[in-house]
Structure formats: structure tokens, C-alpha cells
């Protein structure tokens, strides 16, 4: 459905994308996971035909993003990271406007958006600018879907959204996937990675790894331990001095530690137990 081959893009000195290649199958949710500044938005802008890459190729539904940009625009839905609907138009007017721009009507594709739109329909006379963050996001998704796109590209849709709405949002994406829509989504939240069929871990314009979340976790090369003590920071400093420690960092309530040759030393007053690595652990490991 979407293929990217050797994409490179730089802004002056800064290289935003360095030789990126991946492939997305139709009807899958593909997540691009990476911190701010990883190049996620640049990649989206190239795939949505808003920007041209310096070199490399990309196709969406078999159409080249440079040559066939006009045709691509008919079959993709894009939700930029920043809310970019008309704040001075109402919920209903925005949806109606985007439907008419795509030469369709709300009625025609209502079945596709009804799950989402129903939740904001009570506020359809309200101006988009007056909506809460979660509702804005639902409206933006409705507007991106109203022309029944084959591929949906969502740039950090859950950034700045509360945890409950985030969860809701991902279940909405699952339902859209069942409708056969290919979804490309980026997020800085590692915990959302497992909701995707495939993920690409991205950092500083490079892809660190592209695979299913399960396989990425399975490919973790070391044995990971959780170390719990009274004072995490003091413990971290102490562990960093220890020659047996290959790598250690704070993760939530405890520390994550990898030991050289898996030699677990005995440290007084702390609890050490083996844990299964998460996507975040894989990311940190790959960044080294």
C-alpha cells in the first residue's frame, strides 16, 4: 500500500531523514515511534505530497508521491499534528466543507465516521475552536475520513490528549482498520506501539528497526533486570560506577539494568529481578 525507498531530506545542515525505507501492507496499522525531532513529521509531509524529498522514492497505493500527487490527494486522509480545521466554523460546517471539497457528502460516507462523529454530534453547532482537545481530535479524524480514503495518515494524533481519550482513539483506529483502511500513525508514546501491527522505531532521521512489536521485543539481545531501591537517583549513580553494569537507566518506579555477561552482583538493600523488555527498552537499547 505504502512503500518508501531510500528517502532523504535535509533542511540546510540538518538532516531530517537519512535513507529511510519501509513497506506498509494494505489494511494494517503502521506506527512510527520516535521522540520529537526524529523526522516523523517530515516523513508525513513527503507522503502526503506537501513536500518533496531530496532523493529516494515513495508510493502510496501504487502512485508516486511526486508524479501522481494530484491523484494521491484523492485517496489519502491526513491529520496534521496541529489542529488545522477552521476554528471559526462549526463542527458541522467543517465536516460539510471537507466533504464538499472532496466532491462528496456527509450522507454518502456517514457510516464510516458515525462511530466517531456521534460522540461530537451533540456539539455540532459549536465552533471548532471552542471544542476540547479530545473533541477537536475526533472532529479532525472525521474530516480526514469523510471522503473514504484508502490510507489514513495521522501525525501524532494523541499528543496532548488525556489517557482516556487516547485509549478511545486507538480503539477507533482498530475499527477503521476493520473497514480496510491502511493507517500510518506516528506517536512519541512507546506504550502505544503495541497497538500497531507494525512499528518503525525512528531516531534522528534514521529507522532503528522495522518489525512487528512482538518481534522487536523478542529480538532484545540482553537479559534485562529491574532493580528497586529506596532512592532511584542515588542507586543509579552507584550502579553506573559498578564495573559489572553494562547499561542502566530509570524506567518508571524502578531502574532497568543490563549486566556484563549476565553476571548479577549482589547489592545490599535492593531487589533485583529479571523482567521482560518493553518497546521502550528496545528503543533505548537500539539507540546505543
Amino acid at each position, binding site marked *: 500500500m505504502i512503500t518508501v525507498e531510500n528517502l532523504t531530506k535535509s533542511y540546510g545542515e540538518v538532516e531530517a531523514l537519512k535513507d529511510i525505507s519501509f513497506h506498509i501492507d494494505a489494511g494494517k496499522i503502521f506506527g512510527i515511534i520516535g521522540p520529537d525531532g526524529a523526522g516523523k513529521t517530515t516523513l508525513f509531509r513527503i507522503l502526503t505530497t506537501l513536500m518533496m524529498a531530496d532523493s529516494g522514492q515513495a508510493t502510496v497505493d501504487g502512485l508516486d508521491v511526486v508524479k501522481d500527487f494530484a491523484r494521491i490527494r484523492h485517496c489519502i486522509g491526513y491529520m496534521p499534528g496541529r489542529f488545522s480545521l477552521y476554528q*471559526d466554523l462549526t463542527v458541522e460546517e467543517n465536516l460539510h466543507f471537507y466533504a464538499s471539497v472532496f466532491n462528496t457528502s456527509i450522507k454518502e460516507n456517514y457510516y464510516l465516521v458515525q462511530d466517531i462523529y456521534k460522540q461530537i454530534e451533540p456539539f455540532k453547532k459549536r*465552533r471548532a475552536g471552542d471544542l476540547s482537545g479530545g473533541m477537536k481530535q475526533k472532529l479532525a479524524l472525521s474530516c480526514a475520513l469523510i471522503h473514504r480514503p484508502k490510507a489514513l495518515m495521522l501525525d501524532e494524533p494523541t499528543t496532548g490528549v488525556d489517557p482516556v481519550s487516547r485509549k478511545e482513539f486507538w480503539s477507533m483506529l482498530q475499527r477503521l482498520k476493520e473497514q480496510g483502511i491502511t493507517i500510518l500513525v506516528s506517536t512519541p508514546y512507546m506504550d502505544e506501539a503495541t497497538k500497531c501491527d507494525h512499528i518503525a522505531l525512528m531516531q534522528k532521521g534514521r529507522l532503528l528497526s522495522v518489525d512487528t512489536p512482538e518481534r522487536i521485543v523478542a529480538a532484545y539481545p540482553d537479559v534485562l533486570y529491574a532493580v528497586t531501591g529506596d532512592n532511584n537517583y542515588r542507586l543509579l549513580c552507584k550502579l553506573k560506577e559498578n564495573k559489572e553494569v553494562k547499561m542502566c537507566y530509570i524506567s518508571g518506579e524502578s531502574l532497568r539494568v543490563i549486566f556484563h555477561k549476565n553476571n548479577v552482583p549482589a547489592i545490599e538493600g535492593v531487589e533485583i529481578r529479571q523482567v521482560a523488555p518493553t518497546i521502550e527498552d528496545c528503543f533505548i537499547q537500539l539507540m546505543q
Partner: protein
Amino acid sequence: MLLRYLLEKEFKQIRRNPFLLRLIVAYPILVMLVFPWVANLEVKDINLCIVDNDHSSYSLRLAEQIPASGYFHLAAVALTYDKAIEYIKQNKSDVILEIPMDFEKALMRGESTTVMISPNSVNGTKGLFAANYLTQILSDFSVDISEKQLQGAIEIIPQYRYNPYLNYKTFIIPALMVILLTVICGFLPALNIVGEKEKGTIEQINVTPLKKSLFILSKLIPYWMIGLFILTVCFGLAALIYGLIPAGSFFTIYLFAILFIITYSAFGLVISNYSATMQQAMFVMFFFTIVMLLMCGTFTPIKSMPHWAQTITYANPLRYFIEAMRAIYLKGSGFTDLHTQFLVLTGIAGLFSLWAVLSYKKR
């Protein structure tokens, strides 16, 4: 069909923007009701200081005749010229008239005599007008005297064509209408487009199959319509309040107005293409508009500018439109009289449109 939806959206947004709505309603009224009185070059109530070295009946008569003209107010009578200069320095008087000794004696003998006029020219216009008015009064005075002595004299009767009473309002109103159009049709669509860039909404539009040209057109048409509507309102106000009705045809006026609107909105588009923020666009627009306003002949005649500046005005679209407006309004010129202005304005319109299209990123 699609354009209809786009226009619907634009008008909705204009209607919901309280600032814009007020601007569109209040601005033409302000321009037509207030500016013709404010932007007035007629100088009145000039404070006059007389230094009378003669103290004769003639000099007294002259001193009485001057304030009677309505332009002057006798602020002070000084004994010496130095004292009079003192008044000027204190801003108590604007112009000094010094009457020489033996003023009456010379006149009685039928000899010529000289008086001195010293206007304060810190405000050049005021000084010039004061001197001119005084000269006029003095020449009337001298004619008066010569008639009494039954001597021949030339009386000059100027006949001001197309504006017989030298009414400044008649002259400024057509120009004010042009300024109005620059704001409504030049600034507003440009700011609107840059505003969409700034808010990011243009991003969402760019990923739709919507054609750029159609989108831009949907931005321009509402302001073209509003501009022409406001112009029509101005015609009404000018006729109603100032009794100013164009001597030429409305058809020619609208033809020029439409041409100018296209020129200036294309100019606005060029600027919006190069700007990333509304602030930037506003400042650049402002800069060029002020330059064009000062160099278009509205406030100062082009002929009084230095040669190099006159050359620059040939590239100023405002110049041609204002020339045309004044000619149609006051002289009743028809299209055939104005075909030079029409052709040049068409050329500039084409140039700006081409530039606007070329500078617009195609993707």
C-alpha cells in the same frame, strides 16, 4: 459548484470575524464623513502680526481689510520688526506684514511702494498659503486705490476650471475612494491567505484535491465584491453629503475600479506568497502602500516632485487610478480620454498577476 462552497465558507468566516465586519462597515463611513474635512489643505485662521511704521489712514485701512478676508486673524500689532519676530518665535503669530514709513505718502503720489511679508515656514504649506493670500489681498488693495485715483490697472480674474470654488473636498474625495479600495481589496485578502498559512489550515487544504487557483479565487472574490459594494456606498455618500456627482460615466469608473482591484489584490497575493506570518505581510504591505500613497498625487502634485521621483510614479498603479478617478469625477472624461491610464493599469495588473502566479509554490 465547488467555488460556491468555498465562497460560502469565506463569507461565513468574514461574517463571524467581528473586527473585519466592523472594519468593512465603519471604514468607508469614516473615510467619507471625516477624512474630507480632515485631509484639507485650505489654511484658515492664520495669525497675523502687523508692524505698522506708517500709522496713516491707508495703513490702518489695510490692517482692517486683511482680517475681513476671513483667512486672517489679527493676533498682534508690533512696534518693531524684532518684536514681531518675537511673536513668531512664541508661536503667537504665523506671518508678519511690515508696512514701511511713508506708505501713504507714496501711494498718494501714485508712486510704488513695498511691504514685507514674512511667513513662518516651519509648516511650508501654511507659510506658502499665508503669503499667497496676503499677496492677493494686497493686490486687491492696490487695485482699489488705483481705481480711486482713476489710473489704469490690470485686474486678474482667475477662473478655476472643473472645480470653480477650489473646493478641496471635491478634489480629495475621489482619491479617498481609491485608498479605501487599497485596504479592502489589497490588504484583506493578502492577510486572509497568510492567516491560513499561520493557523496551519492551509496544510489541510493542500492535501485535498482542491485546485490552488480555485482556492485563491475564493479568497479574492469576496473582497472584490465587498470592495465594489463599498465603492458604490461611497458614491452615494459623496452625492448625498457633498453633492458630488461624477461628471463622467459610472461605467468608466467601475471599469477602472475593477481593473485597479485586480491589480492591487494581485500585489497583495505576491506579498502573501513571500510572507510566513500576518505581521510580516502587514508590514510589507504597509510599507509599499505608504510609498505608493505619497507618490500617487493624492496629497501633493506629481509635477512638484523631483524628476527621479516622477519617474518612479510611472510604476505606481495608484497614480493611474487616481488620475482616472479625478478626471472622470471632475472633468467628465470618457474612456477615450483615459486610454493611456487604462493600458498602463492593465499592464501593471498583468505583471502583478503573473508574478503572483509564478511566486506561488505549485505544490
